[in-house]
């Protein structure tokens, strides 16, 4: 059969055209790695959570790849250290979207950065999961691509209130925060919640975290008849000073509140270890030891597997498990749908019901992207850290 020059030209053009139009792409897509962007604050102030999450991320990616990947596709983690700086987070997000062409983004891990990058990811329809607590970061209409893998501020607030009112059965509450924007808004929200539930807020204050002596406010709280002090601050210095003053006053009252109450820094700042007793910080059932001193079976088995591979002594178990869950959620979305397109991943996450993660059982639907179960947000005994996990506060079963 002879081929004329015209037929050859048309045939060649058709071949070039089909390859350009993407008819050969499925073969490529099935072998290319699944790229997960990881916006991590690994250095600089506030890097402790990022370092913890990162250990989980690396562990999960290596485990999946060692098992052959996802339908033959390897997981590739593309990490950018944002140093907790929103400007760096914005630049890294834009690079991930336009140059690295990632399939999904995990992070950032603090709310300041997340507030800056969430609209950018929404415009690019980039599947995004993050653990940031600020309520406004989840808006299913404005940001249909964004999913929260940890509790929101409201859920923390609910857990603290439930513990004070339903478990400790106390009604006279003092609510104290620092003078930062977070401290002021958290105190206001907490006070409104307690009043709504019929409690009596006998004392409310915002204290400058650098104030050297906390005696004045603690004295006023005691005089007001408070039965429990709810603390909303990230300042470990202020919290430790309050604990020292409580001990000096001989006031037998419980402190309940922000997770930073359980920070290891406080152990160095209290004058006596006993000053850190009767302090209960927000924690998570999946990463808490029960009355028997054991973790839930699944996470106990995970901790055994992590031994020798992931250091848990200087981090929190929930950071590590949340990092593992994030990578696995992307991998499982691609595995279930057979596609790494934005629509497929977002669609899959929107259909998750009680997805069995290590950190929690997440449920999402198109109208609810706060996936962490409120019932699993519990209070922990703040001074009981061991391998990154805490004892459940008194009053919880199991």
């Amino acid at each position: 059969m002879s081929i004329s020059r015209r037929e050859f030209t048309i045939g060649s053009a058709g071949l070039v055209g089909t390859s350009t139009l993407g008819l050969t792409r499925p073969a490529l897509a099935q072998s290319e790695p699944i790229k997960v962007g990881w916006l991590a604050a690994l250095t600089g102030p506030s890097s402790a959570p990022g370092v913890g999450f990162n250990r989980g991320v690396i562990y999960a990616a290596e485990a999946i790849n060692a098992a052959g990947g996802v339908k033959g596709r390897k997981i590739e983690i593309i990490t950018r250290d944002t140093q907790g700086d929103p400007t760096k987070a914005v630049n890294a997000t834009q690079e991930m979207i336009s140059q690295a062409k990632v399939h999904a983004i995990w992070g950032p891990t603090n709310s300041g950065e997340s507030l800056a990058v969430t609209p950018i990811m929404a415009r690019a329809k980039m599947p995004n999961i993050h653990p940031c607590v600020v309520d406004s970061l989840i808006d299913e209409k404005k940001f249909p691509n964004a999913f929260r893998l940890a509790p929101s501020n409201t859920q923390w607030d609910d857990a603290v209130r439930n513990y004070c009112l339903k478990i400790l059965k106390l009604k006279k509450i003092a609510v104290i925060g620092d003078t930062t924007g977070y401290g002021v808004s958290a105190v206001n929200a907490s006070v409104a919640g307690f009043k709504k539930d019929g409690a009596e807020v006998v004392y409310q204050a915002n204290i400058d975290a650098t104030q050297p002596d906390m005696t004045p406010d603690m004295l006023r709280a005691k005089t007001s008849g408070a039965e429990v002090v709810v603390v909303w601050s990230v300042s470990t210095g202020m919290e430790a000073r309050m604990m020292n003053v409580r001990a000096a006053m001989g006031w037998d009252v419980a402190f309940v509140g922000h997770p930073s109450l359980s920070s290891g820094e406080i152990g160095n700042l209290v004058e006596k270890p006993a000053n850190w007793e009767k302090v209960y910080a927000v924690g998570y059932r999946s990463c808490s030891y029960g009355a028997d001193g054991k973790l839930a079976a699944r996470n106990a088995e995970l901790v055994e597997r992590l031994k020798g591979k992931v250091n848990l002594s200087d981090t929190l178990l929930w950071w590590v498990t949340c990092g593992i869950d994030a990578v696995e959620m992307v991998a499982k979305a691609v595995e279930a749908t057979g596609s790494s397109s934005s629509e497929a991943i977002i669609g899959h996450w929107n259909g998750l019901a009680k997805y069995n993660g290590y950190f929690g059982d997440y449920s999402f639907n198109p109208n609810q992207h706060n996936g962490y179960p409120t019932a699993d947000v519990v209070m922990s005994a703040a001074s009981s850290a061991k391998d990154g996990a805490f004892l459940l506060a008194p009053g919880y079963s199991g």
Partner: protein
Amino acid sequence: MLASILASGVAVGAIYALIGIAYNTMFSTSRVMSFTAGQLGMLGGVLGSLFVLRLGLPPIVGFVAMLACCALIGVITEFVAVRPVLKSLDQHLYVLSTLALALMIQQVTAIKWSTEPQPFPRLFELGSGTLDEKFWVPVAACLLTIIGLELLYRKTLVGRAFLAIAEDNFAARALGLPERNLRIASYALAGAIGGLAGFAGGQLLLAFFANGPLLNFYGFVPVALGGLGNNRGAVIGGLALGIFQQAANFLVGGIFSSVAVFCIFIIVLLLAPQGLFGSHVARRV
């Protein structure tokens, strides 16, 4: 309550007074308000904790090492942030240069030390309650500094040379005094005094990188209240500020105490712009 107000107020006031003296010492030989004074206080606490707690040096060795380091920072301030702008004092460029250096010191401390407050060691294990050492050590440090400075200025040749430079820079130079070297020495001295403030107040303020701006701010108030360059005024102003601030903490709450402090500050300056103990300065024409 009164004992608590006095113990805490006088202690904090003594720290503010020492920072005010550091401001004055730098000002006297250079006519520059160096905003590194508060950072020197912060470094006093951080370096004290570093040498004594982390490195395990005996407190006296840690104290001397801290003084040397802070004096060195004082000298660096003179070279980096003061000397280059001395020729254009009327443009007040020193505000920018010293603030920039202060920010650098703070950021490096945050990165290399910690962004969380760190513990400061007990020094003497003496006292409890309102007589605890954390309350009287800053007061003792302030007293010793005042006595030391008085002896320096009245009994030594170097001290008199300091006074001569502070009184009339041009006349002192005309008499052959080494103005540049004396200025460097005064910055080293100010560095040590600032460091002493942070070290003495370490048990109250902890070793925390964010103490710098706080001390910068509240250390400046006694200087303005007492009159620029007047150390006695700074001490009285500092102690009054500390007691008033602590009383306001008790009476109206922490969030309003800063407001109360600055209301008084503004009222005093409206009534006595030269400060309570400052003298009117004749303007050159």
